């Protein structure tokens, strides 16, 4: 039963991906990407269904389990059907296998495996033994609300009440809802559940970086990027907190990876957009910063491109993206309208202060300098290592690498701009506010920056030559 609560979301998410990509999703690096994204998407969908079940019926117990089991079986059968039959009927553009000039560097794989074991062991020790209930916000917000949903009986709405409001009472429910769903199905609020959710998404982020770069740039580059993630000890730390930041990083990364794949495999464009819609809506369902991410991705990837391209084609792409995000985003909108109270940062009172702050140059400088300092000193100046590596290694100049990268970088910079704005209108002391949260905000974007960095820089191989079609192969 304990395993079943994790297996069902995994099956739901993975079956959707296999049904969408029967020809690719179960081969080599794609299998890892399918499993990781499948777990995340499954958690997003099942946390939404559990919340809606709670609203419409009652606590998700036996009946809910049967309903979810039926959904999983249906999706798995559909995925098997698609895998066995659709594979032979769909005409796919099969590219050549990976460039034979690129030698696999076996010791990179061994180091990756050693560090992955060390990462998992460190996570288990820290999360299960040192802080089984997570850090401050876990017992003040995330798991506290999950407890209210689970233990509150008919009074569960108190979790979102004004009287109960401490910090950020309007936060969306992917993490809280997943934990609540599993506790309800098991009938006990064991600490292992939020720890395992946090652990799966943290390890999933690293594996997504590896698998996506293995597909796009070759396995060596994938291993190197994943190895780099192990240097980021702040990512490990924040994951053990059981907050929404590491899960949000997972979904932001997943969405950017899917858009990068879309840019490289235009024949898979619509299916990838459907999946990207799902991951982007899961990001919005995880934390409010995810809503900003969703808005920006629509602005940059769809509205921003309308001027240059055929607007009907873009509209069609947006339709697929919207289809993907419809269910989880619909749940989020319902939650925000029906249950969530006003945000403590972006609200009428704070926005009114904007006119006072608008000409306050000192405030601009304080936020800008504070953010710059925090970003450059993040994780013991890890950015300097990236800069040195970049200067020595250089950028990969193949056209497929350049394609779409500018929009991703712009998106990430605008996300930072959004964070700047939230500090700018903050009612709190700016120094305190940044000190208590900016490190976590950087973690939200960090895996994506790492992915984009290793997507652009030259591979680890000597005399590596990547023909234009090699990256198109699975």
């Amino acid at each position, binding site marked *: 039963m304990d395993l079943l609560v994790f297996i069902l979301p995994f099956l739901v998410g993975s079956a959707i991906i296999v049904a969408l990509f029967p020809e690719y999703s179960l081969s080599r690096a794609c299998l890892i990407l399918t499993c990781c994204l499948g777990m995340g998407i499954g958690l997003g969908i099942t946390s939404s269904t559990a919340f809606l079940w709670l609203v419409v019926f009652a606590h998700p117990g036996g009946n809910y389990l049967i309903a979810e089991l039926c959904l999983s079986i249906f999706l798995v059968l559909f995925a098997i059907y698609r895998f066995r039959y659709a594979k032979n009927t769909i005409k796919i553009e099969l590219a050549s296998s990976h460039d034979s000039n690129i030698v696999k560097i076996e010791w990179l794989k061994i180091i990756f495996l*050693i560090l992955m074991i060390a990462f998992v062991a460190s996570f288990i020790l820290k999360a299960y033994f040192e802080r089984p209930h997570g850090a401050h916000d876990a017992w003040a917000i995330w798991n506290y609300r999950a407890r209210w949903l689970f233990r509150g009986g008919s009074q569960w709405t108190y979790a979102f009440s004004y009287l109960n409001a401490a910090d950020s009472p309007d936060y969306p429910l992917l993490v809280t809802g997943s934990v609540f769903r599993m506790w309800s199905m098991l009938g006990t609020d064991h600490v292992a559940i939020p720890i395992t959710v946090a652990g799966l998404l943290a390890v999933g982020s690293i594996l997504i970086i590896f698998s996506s770069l293995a597909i796009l740039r070759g396995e060596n580059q994938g291993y190197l990027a994943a190895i780099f993630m192990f240097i980021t000890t702040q990512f490990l730390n924040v994951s053990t907190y059981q907050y929404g930041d590491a899960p949000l990083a997972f979904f932001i990364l997943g969405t950017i990876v899917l858009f990068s794949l879309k840019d490289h495999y235009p024949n898979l464009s619509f299916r990838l957009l459907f999946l990207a819609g799902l991951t982007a809506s899961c990001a919005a369902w995880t934390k409010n910063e995810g809503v900003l991410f969703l808005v920006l991705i629509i602005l940059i990837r769809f509205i921003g491109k309308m001027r240059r391209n055929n607007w009907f084609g873009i509209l069609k792409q947006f339709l697929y993206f919207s289809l993907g995000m419809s269910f989880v985003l619909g749940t989020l909108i319902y939650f925000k309208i029906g249950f969530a109270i006003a945000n403590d940062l972006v609200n009428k009172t704070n926005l009114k202060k904007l006119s006072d702050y608008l000409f306050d140059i000192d405030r601009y400088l304080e936020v800008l300098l504070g953010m710059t300092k925090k970003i450059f000193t993040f994780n013991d100046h890890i950015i300097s290592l990236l800069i040195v590596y970049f200067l020595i290694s250089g950028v990969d100049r193949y056209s497929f690498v350049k394609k779409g990268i500018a929009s991703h970088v712009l998106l990430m910079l605008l996300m930072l701009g959004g964070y700047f704005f939230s500090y700018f209108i903050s009612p709190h002391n700016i120094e305190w506010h940044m000190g208590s949260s900016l490190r976590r905000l950087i973690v939200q974007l960090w895996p994506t920056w790492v992915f984009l960095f290793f997507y652009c820089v030259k591979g680890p191989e000597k005399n590596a030559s990547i023909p234009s079609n090699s990256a198109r192969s699975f």
Partner: protein
Amino acid sequence: MLKEEIKSYLESRLNKYFPAVRWPVLLIVIPALLIGIYTLLNILSEVVIEKRRSNVADYENRFASIQKDLPANAYVNYVTDQEYAPDFILVRYALVPARIVYGLTSKQEYLVVQYLDTAKIPNFEGYTLKKNYENGVMLFQRSR
């Protein structure tokens, strides 16, 4: 001249051990190995030798008994000799689904008291001691 010699010597050594890899890769791999293993050992020492534990579990254990005696979803006053933060948030978390009201400004039927640094059993006007859990936690009820 010397610079060239050093460079060619280093390149030849690197080529010997890492024939297929560009040397900047080592800038990432070596720190990753050192930091990854150091982090694991550091956490191992904190958890196993220093036995570092978060205090949330202490709150969970301390309030486990009183939780059974509180009516579900009821508003309950809370008084303590500890600092407000993070004590109040931890108590609030441990006692879900009781709705904790800090202080005695609006008096409820039940009053939960946590006195960890005070040995004497306190008196609260309008309340009588219902149960002392002998771990610093006490439950008071309004006098009839």
